[in-house]
């Protein structure tokens, strides 16, 4: 049985994670491209899908898969047809993004990672 203070700490930690998750979902949804978008973009899939299934979905949507990013469920894809972003979603992608800024940050008391670090992890089409 955890002592009272540890229960408080655990509760606080879990609440913060939950709040961060909710805020992340809201912000991710807000940053998705509109259905009518076309051009080069990032297509995000359910991570449980295998590589072939993702590739097939990109082709089905009328896109040209260009490369996979360091996040295995995120692909760079190009499609010139108007409404390409919407087609990607219909083909099974979770969403289409112009930029998916997922960059881990280290912070001590001098929390300022330089631009080079960020470039290492940037997910851009």
């Amino acid at each position, binding site marked *: 049985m955890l002592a009272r203070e540890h229960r408080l700490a655990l509760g606080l930690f879990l609440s913060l994670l939950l709040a961060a998750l909710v805020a992340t979902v809201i912000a991710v949804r807000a940053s998705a491209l509109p259905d009518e978008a076309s051009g080069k973009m990032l297509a995000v899939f359910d991570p449980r899908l295998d590589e072939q299934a993702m590739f097939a979905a990109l082709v089905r949507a009328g896109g040209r898969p260009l490369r996979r990013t360091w996040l295995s469920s995120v692909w760079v894809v190009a499609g010139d047809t108007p409404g390409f972003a919407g087609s990607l979603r219909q083909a099974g992608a979770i969403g289409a993004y112009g930029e998916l800024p997922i960059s881990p940050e280290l912070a001590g008391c001098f929390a300022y990672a*330089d631009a080079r670090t960020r470039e290492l992890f940037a997910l851009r089409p």
Partner: protein
Amino acid sequence: MTDVAESPSTRWLYAPETIIVSGCLIALIAFGVRSTAGLFTAPISDAHGWGREVFGFAMAMQNLIWGLAQPFAGMIADRYGAMRVVMVGALIYGAGTALMAFADSPGVLFLGGGVLMGIGIALTSFSIIMAAFGRLVAPEKRSWSFGIATAASSMGQFVFAPLGHLFIAAYGWQNALLLLAASTLLMIVLSVPLGASKGGAARGEREIDLSMTEALQRGFGHGSYLLLISGFFVCGFQIAFLTVHLPAYLVEHGISASLAAWAIGIVGLFNVIGSYFAGIYGGHASRRQGLVFIYLARSAIIAAFILLPVTAISTVLFTASMGLLWLSTVPLTVGLVTLMFGTRYMATLYGFVFFSHQVGSFFGVWLGGYLYDRYGTYDPVWWLSIALGVFAAIVHWPIREQLAASFAAPAPR
């Protein structure tokens, strides 16, 4: 436990749990918002056609001003209590963050992102929160409360850095800055429970009453305090060097960006765990010995990491173990300041210790880049970090873990 009269209707507001939770949330926001600052390098620089050095200078200024302002923020908190300091700090912090959104010249950026944010961070930082906890939390829970405050600060970057990134993508960089500025204002509300103490010593503890000048003179005349200050310089050096240069080092040694990203996440996660448990440890065992162990362990782990081939496994092991030791020095160092000098001047005296940390941080970042450019390798800085870790262990060893004689309250007549 508190200085204010408690009526049944306000009892919950000044309950220990409320104080701890609100203090932790303040630490989280204060640390979290600043950890997003670097995300704006590219958007601000590109929008105004400035070189990256303009933004970099503003951030360097922010860190320096934070360090310089921390002792003064501490003095005000020791005199007037944490609540008012945090309230004013939140306003300044928010104003600085918002000003960055509208900066149309480097001067305005330096004012907003450098000066105002630096002062705002000093006034809302975990140093102020921990000093408030020192006064408001029962002595047997004090070290634990320092640990949870540090862990909450660490969580701040975990929560805010990805959110900041997403805010920029979703709403544009200017709106993202305004959202972050708005979130700093939450600290005003959150600071209310800290108003349970108006400054001074913790209730029920007999502490010497000195003028601030006298307290500083006595503090700086205490050998163990000077040793603590010199040792904390090393913490700043090592952490700042790794913060800025580790990702580049990993990728340079063939670690994939994917693994490097995970490795950095591992540091962040283990940092939360390490900070929390360091607080618990400090409540039951020797803080001095804990610090000696941490600095020696850092040196040993860094040495092993750079001497062995850099592989996926060594990277994960290195980042997990360094994460555990990342900010775990903080609860123990704050605990030693409290032990040596009591709670009355805690924020001020820790503020000076922290200033040394920030100077170390500056050298860690700067020398990391300078020596890399000069020698084409990070090896000299790694070895310097190892040597400094041993130095820190040596200077912590003779610290006397007891109330300084010059701070002992005279016996009651």
